[in-house]
């Protein structure tokens, strides 16, 4: 059985092809202004890696911010349900998921089958999102990929009073002017972000095991701070950005099996 999940996020688009219960190939590309074009591009890229064509796929489920504009999808499902489904597939013991995406954060609690029990999201505020860290990286003139590692070398965390991206940026600039070590500033930012997402997680209630999905799961500094607050080790997929697309593909597989 060949099915696919496609996750059109606010910053990146992901496509994943599932052969029975095995991941055959996936692709991740930046989401352009043309969402429909992006959906075709990312799907073609995954198909190429799998040496398949669109006609080989029996069912496609779309998810994410742009899920309704995928012309070749048979069905669309919210990213909340897809992240839960994908995370439980990878880590069957997971019951609480924090998805830290390009422009929003979601806290999800689910049952053993990956069905959502409780969710809360925040897409009004950019604190703790990919875009937030892109702006921090630009402001500090550091490569995005190095933020997490550097923050772990901090001697102490600088006090950042606002996790709002607009205010945080000016606070960072003020701290840099004062000569505060970049590492300490990064640790302070991670602390502020962790506090915010912890409040979101408490809305849905935390039950072990705990997983973090989305691009921010690659920032080891944020992950450590969130783990400190939650009091649990976070399970993180080898490629945390594709968990939503994986969940979508699993929904596609289910849809076929129901027929």
């Amino acid at each position: 059985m060949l099915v696919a999940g496609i996750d059109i996020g606010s910053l990146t688009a992901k496509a994943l092809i599932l052969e029975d219960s095995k991941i055959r190939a996936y692709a991740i590309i930046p989401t352009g202004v043309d969402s429909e074009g992006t959906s075709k591009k990312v799907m073609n890229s995954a198909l190429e890696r799998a040496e398949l064509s669109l006609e080989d796929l029996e069912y496609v489920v779309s998810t994410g911010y742009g899920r309704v504009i995928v012309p070749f999808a048979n069905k669309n499902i919210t990213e909340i349900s897809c992240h839960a489904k994908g995370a439980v597939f990878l880590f069957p013991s997971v019951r609480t998921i924090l998805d830290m995406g390009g422009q929003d954060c979601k806290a999800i609690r689910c049952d053993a089958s990956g069905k959502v029990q409780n969710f809360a999201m925040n897409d009004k505020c950019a604190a703790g999102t990919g875009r937030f860290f892109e702006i921090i990286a630009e402001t500090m003139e550091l490569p995005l990929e190095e933020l997490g590692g550097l923050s772990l070398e901090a001697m102490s965390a600088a006090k950042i009073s606002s996790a709002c991206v607009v205010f945080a940026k000016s606070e960072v600039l003020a701290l840099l002017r004062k000569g505060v070590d970049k590492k300490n500033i990064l640790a302070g930012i991670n602390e502020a972000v962790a506090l915010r997402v912890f409040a979101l997680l408490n809305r849905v209630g935390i039950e072990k095991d705990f997983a973090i999905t989305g691009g921010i799961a690659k920032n080891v500094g944020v992950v450590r701070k969130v783990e400190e607050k939650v009091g649990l080790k976070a399970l993180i997929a080898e490629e945390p950005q594709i968990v939503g697309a994986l969940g979508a593909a699993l929904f596609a597989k289910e849809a076929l099996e129901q027929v």
Partner: protein
Amino acid sequence: MIAHYGYADGSGEYYLIVDTDRCDGCGRCVEVCPNDILELAPDDYGKTVVRVKDEFVNSIGYICPACKRRDERCESVCEHAALSYTW
């Protein structure tokens, strides 16, 4: 499923909370909402339940607290206590 629609910002937490296991999709809350922010739609598992329309999720804090003074509001007309809020 407990669905939290809304957000938290510097001024507080604004969530309209739907317990979709309790909701039977009768639509009374949808009718009573003076701002037309609610709708009935199938969730990801196929059950038709009430939800907050996407375009209103990020403005709940400006719209909904005003209903606190009304006798008939989404949460008070629900016979199954499927709705609650945080303001």
